């Protein structure tokens, strides 16, 4: 069973959703479907992104693919991701995996470097590893519109401190 989080309310639904699921818990499923219809596909997409988040192998493969991108990979003038940016991203993913909180995606950054994204509901944390070795994270809530950023130390202690902040921000723990 998975949980669909909607503004001010949590409802539960069976996955995959199909006619056979309209059994003993059909009313709750109907509630979930109503919420999805009311809030549009954005809610469903977010749900899919949370529950369909990448596994470790997918993230590692993505980072390897990102490391091969050439200069101008965005069709404009984005610098190729540097080895140090990719290695730093891998270091964070390693530590995040150990913490049991893998990111939902990694992607190249048009600023030059690699982005690693953690998300839960309407909150996200994105850390950007830049080509020259520094890193900066954005904490953002899409509903409240609140944003803050902070520099991240690209060493083990820095990653552990950062992941603790991510856990607190995303899960209010």
């Amino acid at each position, binding site marked *: 069973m998975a949980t669909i989080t909607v503004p001010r309310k949590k409802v539960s639904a069976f996955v995959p959703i199909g006619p056979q699921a309209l059994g003993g818990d059909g009313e709750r499923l109907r509630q979930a479907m109503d919420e999805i219809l009311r809030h549009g*596909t*954005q809610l469903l*997409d*977010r749900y*899919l*992104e949370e529950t*369909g988040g990448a596994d470790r192998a997918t993230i590692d493969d*993505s980072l390897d693919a*990102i490391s091969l991108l050439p200069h101008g*990979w*965005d*069709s*404009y*003038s*984005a610098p190729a991701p540097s080895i140090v940016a990719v290695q730093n991203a891998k270091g964070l993913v390693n530590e995040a995996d150990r913490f049991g909180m893998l990111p939902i*995606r990694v*992607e*190249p*950054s*048009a*600023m030059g470097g690699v*982005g690693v*994204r953690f998300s839960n509901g309407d909150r996200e944390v*994105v850390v*950007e590893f830049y080509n020259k070795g*520094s890193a*900066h994270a*954005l904490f*953002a809530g*899409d509903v409240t519109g609140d*944003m803050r*950023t902070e*520099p991240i130390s690209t060493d083990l202690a820095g990653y552990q401190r950062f992941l603790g902040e991510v856990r607190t921000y995303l899960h209010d723990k």
Partner: protein
Amino acid sequence: MTNNPQPEQPDQHFSDAERLFRRVRRENIARSGKATFLAFNLPDMSVNRERESSAEDARKGYDQADWAVVAFAVKDIPPRATWVQIVQEYQLKPRHVPEPGNFSHSEVRVWRKVRAVFTLITSRKPEDFLPGDPDRGEPRDTPEALLDPDFHMRWRKHIELAAKMVLPCEPV
């Protein structure tokens, strides 16, 4: 007397409602269908202006399975306004910078106030600007010196929220 038409000149007037198109690679599109802020950059972010082109033009020659086009309005930049960031003051403007084969090419440029003077943030040298570019003679400094990650991350997230997907990647 010749009948040769005069070459078109860049026009630096942008209305607030004019849209700016940007190609986005599939890897920078979330499952929500929106481009993430990692698809945007500062300074000198390239876009195509709507007055001279269409969204389809922005994707011409690119694989529709791997490339999408998003749009945001000039008023979303925000144009010709300052953006006060902690104790730093920034200004952003769209500029029409035609390229060979792409007359609509434009850029989002950014300035930061340094000792009461707005200084263009760019890695370019004066000779990298077209003759007649209004910013060719501006005081300038590099992104490393003037562009604070706190500012560019917030601004790019702001553009992420404002941008609309106009041409999604086609299903493979």
